[in-house]
């Protein structure tokens, strides 16, 4: 049973993480299909999940949400390295492999950008996308992020180094509330399955 809803979307809601979600998080963080999107090889034990979620809950510079569709956990959305003085934060998300392809990642990212800009008064949202992660690239590009640079050979995945593309979106460029009231984001439903 996920925690209470914090951000509401059309197809997914972003919930506060509860202890009941730890199994879901652990399964996916360890999932060989999810990990490459983050370029991590780290094994996560149950205690690691508990420590991570609790440290985020206590920190001022990050937020973590469980993404649920019809009440079922389907992924995670998070903000980290939040710097209120500079007005910036970095965005991350993943959707469980068997729930991808439904536009959940796009809506998760969209809710988090809206939250960062409209509730937290931030000026910039940054996203890093591993060069091979086309699904995630479509998510950020679909939301209007600009490609602003590349970190060469920044991650090591599946036997080789990979570049990371840097994207960002400025508050001035975010017109999501108006667009939302206009109705739909169906054109984005193909872009899913992304990680940060």
């Amino acid at each position, binding site marked *: 049973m996920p925690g209470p809803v914090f951000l509401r979307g059309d197809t997914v809601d972003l919930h506060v993480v509860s202890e009941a979600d730890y199994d879901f998080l652990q399964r996916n963080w360890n999932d060989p299909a999810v990990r490459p999107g983050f370029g991590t090889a780290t094994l996560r034990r149950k205690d690691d999940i508990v420590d991570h979620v609790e440290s985020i809950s206590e920190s*001022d510079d990050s937020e973590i949400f469980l993404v649920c569709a019809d009440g079922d956990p389907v992924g995670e959305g998070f903000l980290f390295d939040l710097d*209120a*003085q*500079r*007005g910036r934060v970095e965005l991350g998300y993943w959707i469980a492999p068997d729930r991808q392809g439904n536009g959940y990642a796009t809506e998760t990212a969209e809710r988090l950008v809206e939250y960062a800009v409209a*509730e*937290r*008064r931030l000026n910039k949202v940054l996203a890093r996308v591993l060069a091979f992660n086309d699904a995630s690239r479509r998510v950020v590009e679909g939301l209007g992020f600009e490609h602003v640079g590349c970190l060469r050979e920044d991650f090591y995945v599946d036997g080789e180094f990979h570049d990371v593309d840097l994207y960002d979106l400025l508050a001035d460029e975010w017109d999501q509330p108006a667009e939302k009231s206009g109705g739909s984001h169906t054109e984005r439903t193909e872009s899913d399955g992304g990680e940060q």
Partner: protein
Amino acid sequence: MPGPVFLAGDRVTLRPAEESDLEFLARNHNDPTIRQSMPRSYPRRRDAIRDEYVDWGDDAVGLLACAGDDPDADRLGYCALFRIDEDPGRAAVGVWFAPDAQGQGYATDAVELLADHAFDERRLHRLDAAAMATNDRSRALLERVGFTEEGRRRDYYFVGGEYVDRVEYGLLDGERQVE
């Protein structure tokens, strides 16, 4: 000896308060003329002074005001941004100066430094301030800096045997008299 300079104006420097400043802070915090302009109605011992003036938490920044940038500069008063809330971009500002340091523009200089710091360095959008309705000096100071009177809470304080209104002020980024 006061700590290193953090903000420097024409007349005052603002510095972190240190253990060695506690005597000055405790003396003035308890001083009847200062107390009655704030107002504060109960005595404060050294530990409470340390908590309030030196060990403030994440949502505040408090600074000792000194005359000039000399390491041995005279201590003049204290000022602070508190209730800092970065989401709406808001903070409250408060200030007091020792009786013999009043009337010389020090407090105005200090509040202007805090406003510059709040808007230009901390990216805040609005400052709250309040003064007793009877405190002409504080109200003139706030208006000089550019604060707008926004409201009044009736009989908010009890000072010298009488109820006194509290006048609320606000200053938005872009409204400083001296930008």
